């Protein structure tokens, strides 16, 4: 009897130990920070330069030389409000400085090598993540301002992660209420009121965009997962560029004129596969179609290779094929009877190749005993378009994490 009792007691203690992972007090939860803390900060800076000979400002001919220096900083703050419930706030500020040879050709009377402008674009985002139910809801506000373009944007999202964490689906919506200040080319400035004539302003027009995006991500094995994303985007309002010239076949000159509505339907498939112990494959494919007749295929492959525990190299290639809009025609090939027309080669039929290399280092170097540099990445790429436009871009990303 005593032996049975001791045996049963021993088994009971073993049973409690076995279920320990479910019922023991998780000491980490006692120490989850309930104050708002800076979790992560990112700085991304890039330099972009392009050349080409089909500027839309001068009717499909002329220099497309442009340089853009972009800087974005974002801060992520988070707070655990109750066990399993986390609030995140992301504040982002971007500033772009760009100079463009073609912009200087809007007004022939002003002589200079190029025109410059600055664009700044702050945004804030809020997310509420419930680790118990796997549900995340969030919202965002965005603003963008450059000399002739102002944008107000807002949106929301809902994401559901399965209990096994192998399946995730989500829906996101965005609305952009934009205003385009119309600066006209020199030839179209006669007849404007005095002050407007000098600057070439012809009032402003609205451009509104409504996006809905749904995605589904699925784990296929312990080494691979994929995601499919489908968007519906509807734009309405003034969708032309007010300073783009179009020379017709009869020699006359008009302003670019495009329809006031546009429906876009892109769908993409993205995957990530861990091959062996050191190589990852990240393929991406997108099919796109819209109501202006543009069709495109995008294929991209990135292959990060882990050279060591803290260094990885990531060569990449992106191929793009576009069938242009039915409204496009080159310089002096637009029929006089056309209702809508453009000579913007960005909307024409072309193929492009974009390839390069990224180097990533994860130093986890401590700074001031509060933060660590968790990631430094440098990436460079060269872009070639079949109409002769070429560009290169160099991007640097530094990430800081709180210790």
């Amino acid at each position, binding site marked *: 009897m005593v032996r049975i009792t001791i045996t049963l007691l021993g088994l009971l203690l073993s049973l409690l130990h076995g279920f320990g992972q479910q019922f023991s007090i998780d000491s980490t939860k006692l120490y989850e920070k309930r104050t708002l803390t800076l979790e992560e900060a990112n700085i991304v800076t890039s330099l972009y330069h392009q050349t080409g000979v089909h500027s839309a400002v001068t009717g499909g001919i002329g220099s497309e030389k442009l340089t853009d220096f972009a800087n974005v900083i974002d801060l992520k703050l988070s707070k655990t409000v109750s066990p399993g419930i986390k609030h995140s706030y992301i504040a982002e500020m971007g500033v772009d400085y760009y100079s463009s040879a073609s912009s200087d050709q809007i007004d022939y009377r002003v002589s200079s090598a190029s025109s410059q402008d600055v664009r700044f674009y702050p945004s804030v985002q809020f997310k509420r993540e419930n680790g118990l139910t796997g549900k995340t809801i969030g919202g965002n506000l965005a603003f963008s301002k*450059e000399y002739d373009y102002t944008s107000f944007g807002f949106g929301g999202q809902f994401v559901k992660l399965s209990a096994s964490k192998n399946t995730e689906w989500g829906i996101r919506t965005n609305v952009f209420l934009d205003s385009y200040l119309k600066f006209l080319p020199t030839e179209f400035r006669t007849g404007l009121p005095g002050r407007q004539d000098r600057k070439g302003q012809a009032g402003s027009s609205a451009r509104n965009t409504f*996006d809905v995006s749904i995605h589904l991500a699925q784990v296929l094995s312990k080494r691979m997962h994929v995601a499919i994303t489908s968007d519906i985007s509807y734009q309405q309002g003034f969708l032309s560029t007010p300073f783009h010239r179009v020379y017709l076949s009869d020699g006359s000159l008009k302003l670019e004129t495009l329809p006031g509505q546009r429906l876009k339907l892109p769908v993409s498939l993205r995957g990530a596969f861990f091959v062996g112990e050191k190589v990852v494959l990240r393929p991406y494919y997108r099919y796109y179609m819209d109501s202006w007749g543009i069709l495109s295929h995008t294929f991209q492959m990135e292959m990060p290779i882990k050279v060591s525990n803290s260094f990885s190299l990531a060569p990449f290639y992106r191929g793009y094929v576009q069938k242009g809009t039915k409204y496009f025609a080159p310089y002096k090939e637009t029929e006089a009877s056309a209702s809508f027309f453009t000579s913007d080669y960005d909307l024409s039929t072309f193929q492009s190749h974009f390839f390069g290399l990224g180097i990533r280092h994860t130093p986890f170097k401590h700074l001031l005993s509060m933060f660590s540099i968790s990631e430094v990445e440098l990436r460079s790429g060269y872009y070639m378009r079949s109409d002769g436009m070429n560009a290169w871009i160099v991007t640097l990303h530094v990430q800081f994490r709180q210790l």
Partner: protein
Amino acid sequence: MKQSFGMNFVQALVYILFTTLLLSSCAGSGIFNRSYLDDADMTLSMRKMEKSEMSFQLYREGSAGATGGKSGGGCGCN
């Protein structure tokens, strides 16, 4: 002998019962080991560098969207 056998059988039965309950406390086999999936290079969303590059693609190409970012609007791009 009989009495000894009877006690051993009961003990064995108790051992089997508690062992079965013990094993049921482990995580289900449907949850994958995520050491590969959680690697930074395995992300299914656009990384910061890619977002920066997408910016020039929005201006220089006629298509946009299905990237986890916007499909248009917010800029004087396509």
